[in-house]
């Protein structure tokens, strides 16, 4: 099947998912992000790569952090950024998704950064642009439903590579609400493509997708067992609405079994790093002492996230 992320010449033109994205593209994005990290340390935190281009942040689902990091990334590339909170504008007046897109293309959009609560929405937009001969307008998936969050996956991969170098020697544990997490899904695909030998999913039965093993992931319901010998521990955010859905007894009970404490972290390797995509719930999935501890790389993840998004945007725009 034709991969809608690639154009006829086999170049990356949209970033929709890490699933099926060949390793060479992932490695190129990670490599390109390295020089972008240092731009943040300069007096002038800007390079002129996307000067004159217009990047539209199309957020059908609210998000402050992801939208802000995309906005900073685009601005550091000298692009013009237009933020649209679609949830409260056009669609509430009845306009369809593709009509909204067509209108923005008519305003000379060069790139869409799309977040949507429906899985597949960015894919739909990219396929529409490809089909109507406008593949020069790029789409970046900034999170769709439970499906994918590829730039978060990439920044997680960048962080892991930064601290641990070689994926082919690592044991990575992903802890928590894997079932509802597009972050987990993207990371698992990326880790698999980069030949990580051992990826573990740790969580209660109600929060692990039944088919997760088919992704090559080892499942643990006991956190101490699952953390044993890990190099990387990725904590997922527990979405409070899961409590209401009766998937979990109580926040206290969850913390007791699956909250990351110093005592549980001691099961992992002594130099294991702790990651979290944010925003985190202290005292629910992670103890403050761990979140602020010397093994935590949660804030570097945020910094790297901007560089990774700059890399993605400049590779897409450069064709």
């Amino acid at each position: 099947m034709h991969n809608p992320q690639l154009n006829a010449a086999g170049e990356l033109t949209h970033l929709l998912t890490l699933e099926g994205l060949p390793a060479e593209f992932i490695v190129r994005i990670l490599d390109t992000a390295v020089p972008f990290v240092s731009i943040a340390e300069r007096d002038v935190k800007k390079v002129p790569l996307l000067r004159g281009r217009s990047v539209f942040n199309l957020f059908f689902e609210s998000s402050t952090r992801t939208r802000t990091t995309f906005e900073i990334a685009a601005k550091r590339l000298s692009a013009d950024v237009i933020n649209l909170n679609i949830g409260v504008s056009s669609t509430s007046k009845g306009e369809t998704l593709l009509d909204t897109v067509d209108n923005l293309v008519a305003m000379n959009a060069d790139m869409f950064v799309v977040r949507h609560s429906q899985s597949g929405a960015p894919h739909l937009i990219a396929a529409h642009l490809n089909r109507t001969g406008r593949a020069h307008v790029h789409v970046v998936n900034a999170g769709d439903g439970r499906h994918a969050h590829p730039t978060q996956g990439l920044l997680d991969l960048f962080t892991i590579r930064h601290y641990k170098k070689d994926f082919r020697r690592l044991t990575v544990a992903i802890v928590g609400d894997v079932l509802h997490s597009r972050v987990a899904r993207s990371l698992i695909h990326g880790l698999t493509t980069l030949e990580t030998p051992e990826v573990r999913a740790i969580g209660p039965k109600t929060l692990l997708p039944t088919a997760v093993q088919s992704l090559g992931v080892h499942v643990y319901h006991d956190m101490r067992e699952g953390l044993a010998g890990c190099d990387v521990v990725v904590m997922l955010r527990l979405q409070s609405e899961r409590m209401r859905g009766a998937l979990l007894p109580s926040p206290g009970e969850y913390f007791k079994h699956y909250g990351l404490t110093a005592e549980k972290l001691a099961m992992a390797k002594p130099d294991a790093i702790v990651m979290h995509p944010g925003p985190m719930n202290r005292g629910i999935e992670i103890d403050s002492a761990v979140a602020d501890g010397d093994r935590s790389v949660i804030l570097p993840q945020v910094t790297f996230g901007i560089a990774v998004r700059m890399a993605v945007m400049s590779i897409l725009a450069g064709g």
Partner: protein
Amino acid sequence: MALPDAEQTYAALADRMRGAIAFDAKFVGIYSGGAWLAERLAQTIEGDHPVGYIDVSFYRDDFDRKGLKPEVKRTQLPFEVEGATIVLVDDVLYTGRSVRAAVNELFDYGRPARIELAVLVDRGGRELPIEATYVGARLAVARDLSIVLSRAADGRFAITAEAGGA
């Protein structure tokens, strides 16, 4: 076309710079040939010459046509650019577009007091009003050839011509 000997050309460039450049001039090499050259010049030429590196990929004017090259290196300028005397160093001066990009990038780090340009080979064919301050050798080269600097394990340079214009 006869290519000059790289080592003799290097010696000629170093001779022209010696005594002419500021004692504390900072050498900034443009990746990758210019980086090797800057490192070696800092050893050869008397004075205090810290070395920095520039990858101009983010400042190139052909991004719209060519995109980003696969391996972008990290620009590293381990000194204050503001008020400094900087010698940009490159292996080959051709259209002048790389130098334009490098000068733009330098200014995003600060306002240098002075920027000079040292090149091993000036092959003509300028498309911008840019000239080198110090030149090792001048050479007329057909448009469809690239002049390529390489560095052997022992640090010695070689100049070759390859098909495919720069």
